[in-house]
């Protein structure tokens, strides 16, 4: 790896969902004015606020000139293939492509459709604590009922549900274990004093906006074999830290 630039400036429009991946194939010794081309491209992308870009040196390869570049002969002459890759939103890629087209005098630019599945960014330093702020609003509460012994593809169903909700950026979920109950399966599940029953009733409670709860209910319904999903309207009073990015604090999306 020759250089990495991962920076989240104002210019980045990268978020979860459809995006474009741009790959540029170059030679290490291709120049752009006074510096090497891959460095110039990285600098340009960073200046434009692209979320991240990586340049990597290849083991070997050949290109338009049909000369085989291998480390044995090329390592001293710095003539190995270099690949610069970055992922950005389609709008941003459209904005960048004309300049890249102009810069790449010798090489190949490839654009492909991709999907951003997760963007995680650790805060470089913890935010200073601000006083709490109250937020009121209408939301939905969803309760999902199942048995503790229920499984989904080998793992406990309630674990799988919490993981799925987390992946869908749902604000929060809590799992409760009941001590007695009956439901879809029709048999009583009871906790015993000496030996814990392995099939107590379990309930997962989730609160979020109506649209997100609806989407989550569809996904969860696919995972449950026998159970029940009950949704109701709730008024929420939420205590949040009032730092400057509160608009983006819905459902805890910390990354951009």
């Amino acid at each position, binding site marked *: 790896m020759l250089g990495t630039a991962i920076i989240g400036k104002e210019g980045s429009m990268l978020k979860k969902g459809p995006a474009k991946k741009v790959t540029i194939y170059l030679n290490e010794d291709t120049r752009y004015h006074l510096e090497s081309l891959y460095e110039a491209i990285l600098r340009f992308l960073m200046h434009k606020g692209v979320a991240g870009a990586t340049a990597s040196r290849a083991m070997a390869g050949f290109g338009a000139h049909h000369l085989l570049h291998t480390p044995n002969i090329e390592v001293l002459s710095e003539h190995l293939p270099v690949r610069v890759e970055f992922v950005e939103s389609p709008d941003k890629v459209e904005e960048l492509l004309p300049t890249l087209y102009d810069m790449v005098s010798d090489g190949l630019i490839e654009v492909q459709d991709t999907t951003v599945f997760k963007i995680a960014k650790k805060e470089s330093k913890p935010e200073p604590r601000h006083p709490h702020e109250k937020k009121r609003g209408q939301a939905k509460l969803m*309760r999902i*009922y199942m048995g503790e012994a229920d499984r989904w593809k080998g793992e406990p169903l309630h674990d799988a549900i919490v993981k799925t909700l987390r992946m869908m950026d749902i604000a929060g979920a809590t799992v*409760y*274990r*009941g*001590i*007695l*109950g*009956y*439901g*879809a*399966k*029709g048999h*009583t599940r009871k906790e015993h004093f000496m030996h814990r029953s392995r099939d107590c*009733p379990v*309930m997962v409670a989730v609160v979020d906006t109506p649209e997100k709860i609806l989407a989550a*209910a*569809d996904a969860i*319904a*696919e995972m*449950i*074999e*026998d*159970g*029940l*999903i*009950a*949704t*109701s*309207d709730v008024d929420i009073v939420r205590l949040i830290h009032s730092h400057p990015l509160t608009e983006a604090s819905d459902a805890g999306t910390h990354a951009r």
Partner: protein
Amino acid sequence: MPAPTPGKILRLHFSERDRYQGKPLYEAIVDKCRELRIAGATVYRGLEGYGEAAEIHRSHVLSHDLPIIVSIIDSAENVARVLPVVEEMMDKGLIAMSDVEVVRIQRSKTAKP
């Protein structure tokens, strides 16, 4: 996902120590719900709490006196049928009822309808 149907959730709050005809009240209520063919009932035990008697319910080494919540979900008619019965069985405590949208999922063949 099947279309949700309107229903009611009933939540009964009382103490683990409450008894009905010699057995724990929560067991008696769950048995009564089955007898009345209510779709389902679940009993939860809280960690700590207090109620109208203003006594704190907390776990001790010997005595178990923790808060108990029984939640019952069914159609409005069935909940209306069970409500007077459980009201009769509880001599203190709290009953809360709210509207819910219910989706029942039953895919396994072993489950009773």
